[in-house]
């Protein structure tokens, strides 16, 4: 498996809750998706970042307390 498909940038130990579960799932899912035709690793990674960003937004309380 190429390093790209290992999604090394995706650190499951640095996220928690829904983000952690999603990241762990992606690490498994990418291997199966990579076998399909027209698989685009760049788009797949961007898709992961979109979801993680939204999961993070949906759970961050910090900004509510820091907002003036």
């Amino acid at each position, binding site marked *: 498996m190429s390093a790209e498909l290992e999604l090394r940038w995706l650190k499951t130990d640095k996220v*928690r*809750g*829904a983000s952690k*579960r*999603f990241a762990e*799932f*992606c690490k498994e*899912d990418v291997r199966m998706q990579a076998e399909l035709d027209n698989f*685009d690793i760049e*788009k*797949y990674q*961007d*898709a*992961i970042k*979109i*979801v993680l960003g*939204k*999961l993070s937004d*949906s*759970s*961050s*309380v910090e900004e*509510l*307390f*820091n907002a003036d």
Partner: protein
Amino acid sequence: MLIKSLNAINFRKFTKLIINDIPESGVITVAGSNESGKTSIGEAICFALFGRTFFQDEKSLFKLVCWGTDLAEVTLTFKTGQGEIYSLWRSVNRKGEIDVRLSQFEENTDIKEDESALTDKETVDDAVSKLLGFDFDAFSNSFYLAQRELTSPDPQSYSIKQMAGIAAYSKITDDLELSNQRNNETIGELQPQVDSNREKLDEINLDETWLPELIDAEETLGSEQKGREQLLGKLNDDDQLYVNNFTSFNSARKSSGLFGVLGKLSFISTIVLGLMWVVNTFYPEVLIEFLLNNFSDSILSSFSIFAEKWLLPAVIVSIVIALLSWVLRKKAKTKMVSLNEEVKDFSGLLDTGHNYVTTLAESLLPERVVQLLHQRDTEPSTLQVLPPREQFNNLTRLISDSLDYQADPEEMSAATSRLTEALKKQDGEVVDLSSKILDDISVEKVRADKAGNLRATLHNLSKAVDKCNYNIDTQTIAIGIMQRAASDSIDKFNQKISDVSAKTLPSFTENRYSELKIAEDFTVQIYSDEKNDYMDFDEISSGTQRQVMLSLRIAMSEQLSINSGNEEQFIFLDEPFAFFDQSRTRSTLENLPKVSDVINQIWISAQEFPDYTKVAKQIECPSDQSELIV
């Protein structure tokens, strides 16, 4: 999430409710007779967290205010799954108006950071939702078991999604689908603009190489024109040069010839006279003997007189004449050289002019420019037609002859005039052509600018469309990943529910049932050890059904805790044993603290508990007092 303390004023039957030092794990019993306020404690927790209770929604909250008072207040201090401690205060008055404040506690201190407290209701609700990781519905379907309420949630409900840990996917999928829809709408708006700009660009049909060719042609003609103008200026200045120089040159040539002959003669005479003077002066006897032998005495006498008086002056005069002739001849030769140089320059001008008038201007221009000019001009111009060649037939010969002023001045003058006239005519036409090409350049520049603007707009539009398409692609992939992740989570969720229920069920049913199966639609089947087979839910007694549902409730609560990031969680069970017999109540109470590693703060209310029940904290609700301080 664990409850640290619960304080209330004028809430339901309590004018004052203070529950502090709440243990983080173990069973907390809330005992009391009917209307002693057991349920009010659960409602106070629920109201503080969500601004409503199981029985009172937002419209009837005023009913929570204690009779005879105007304002009910609840303060709940809790610890989140991340170990952060928050204080949540909420009040409601008789009009149902709510105030709220959420404060964060510094770690290991009790100093409240009031300055950063959130007081806006929507902001607080949002913050609480994020801190807890679940909403009221999920809460009431799991951690909060209201009195007499023991049903399973709707499998399609948002609560189940929260429990399975896929609620966020559902919301994000909705967001992304909406975003994709907007991206498609944007593409729909942009595409006609792209097509329109592309059509306009096609209409312009700009050839990128055409403008450079025109500019090149214009520069070539400009250079040609400049050369012609310079030549004409010089020819105008020097048009009489040949005629004027012709006389001077011939005069100098004659002088040179004359003084050449004179110089030679005077040189010879100087030699003869000089020899005679030398002999007469140094060897007179030889000369006299020669004269006596060859001439008469009278000639001898005359020579003697001449030699004595004039021979030396004659020698000197002869020498002077020879020198003068040499100097004057040299001067004439110099003048001829100078005039030849001038005529050489002049003949160079004529040669250049001859080249101009005998070369087609179109041969200097790019082919397409020539074609354009041919198409445009109805009358032949210098581009296509040369002046009649016979006009310049003799010019080459004249140029050659002019180098020694051999050409006839009148013929040369006439040829120069014809050449000048032809050049002037051609120059005018070149200026006209240049001007036309400049016009073409201006038009082409306008077209190029227009095409450039269209291309820039098209580029930006295409970029925006590409971005939308990319967003749609990645967001569609994201939705696909979430669907697979959700499916995976649901499988795991159902399996976990089965596993956890299997762990609790035997203790709740005194080992009569040990296993259950949950289908995707949440229909439940229970395995009966006695019958050695699975039974449908409605085949078992209502009491057992409630025990099974309690088991399911705890399993779901555990999953919701884990999936919402709460590794420690409280649960409030309001009279869960109403349909349990003594034996199952005892068994359940004994086993409840053991059934989950996550659900470790267990609040249970009942009219009474067996004396031997192991509890972490006991709360006795007095039926005849409105204050409870524990």
